[in-house]
């Protein structure tokens, strides 16, 4: 059964913009548009190239701000998750993406685009454990998971 909330044209167009952004960053700066890598490098000690990372994250925040102003429904609070779940999830995502050298953008877009075997393995792994987690939360525990 397909969910009734799908907007295929927006999803495809949004994806095209992600692809253009990754291409622009590679062409001009020679960098991979991997968000966990960019943000982690900004945060952790020992990084020597903070400025471009800070500007990239500023661009993300500016985009969010523009949508808050023009299309606030982009951030639906319907089905918002409990804060304890958000905290546990954030810890796992932070720890996991640094250990696994990437997230949905770095492995799932940039890595797959250049057919990196590591990124294919990483993407299959996080999709599988993600699906297993949702199955447990929604169908086995069957509680309030959005």
């Amino acid at each position: 059964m397909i969910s009734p909330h799908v907007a295929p044209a927006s999803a495809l167009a949004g994806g095209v913009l992600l692809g253009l952004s990754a291409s622009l960053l590679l062409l001009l700066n020679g960098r991979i548009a991997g968000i966990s890598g960019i943000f982690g490098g900004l945060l952790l000690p020992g990084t020597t190239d903070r400025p471009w990372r800070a500007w990239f994250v500023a661009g993300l925040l500016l985009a969010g701000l523009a949508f808050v102003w023009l299309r606030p429904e982009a951030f639906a609070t319907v089905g918002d998750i409990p804060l304890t779940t958000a905290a546990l999830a954030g810890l796992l995502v932070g720890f996991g993406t640094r250990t696994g050298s990437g997230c949905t953008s770095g492995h799932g877009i940039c890595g797959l685009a250049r057919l990196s075997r590591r990124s294919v393995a990483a993407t299959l792994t996080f999709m599988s454990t993600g699906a297993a987690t949702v199955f447990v939360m929604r169908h086995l525990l069957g509680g309030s998971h959005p």
Partner: protein
Amino acid sequence: MRAQLAALLAGLLFGVGLCLAGMTQPRKIIEFLDFAGSWDPSLALVMLGALGVHAPLQALIRRRPAPVLDACFHVPGPRPIDRKLLAGSALFGVGWGLAGFCPGPALVSLPSLQASAWVFVGAMAAGMLLQHVLVSRGGMAA
């Protein structure tokens, strides 16, 4: 300075793409990962759009000897698939499935002042620092 402007533009484009695609709505991610309920294929379409553009363009771009504003490309070379990659990705997937947030959409959601996004990003930063202290520096690498 030009490289910083380029990064700002790329970040802006990336953020608009995420918002436009609805990736800032955790429910769409959770419904994408839910094969036993009502399935939302949005993330697959997002990846299709992104790969359709970036796969051919990155191949063209990497024929250049160097990027426009830097001396060399900072692209990881081929490395073996190791336990660290798989274990880290597995943990990331669990967190992703719990919250429906991955790093990009969570950061883009901060200006909306959604409490869950702020808590998620704070915890994500803590998780990254913890990983740095325990694994990267401690030599526990697989």
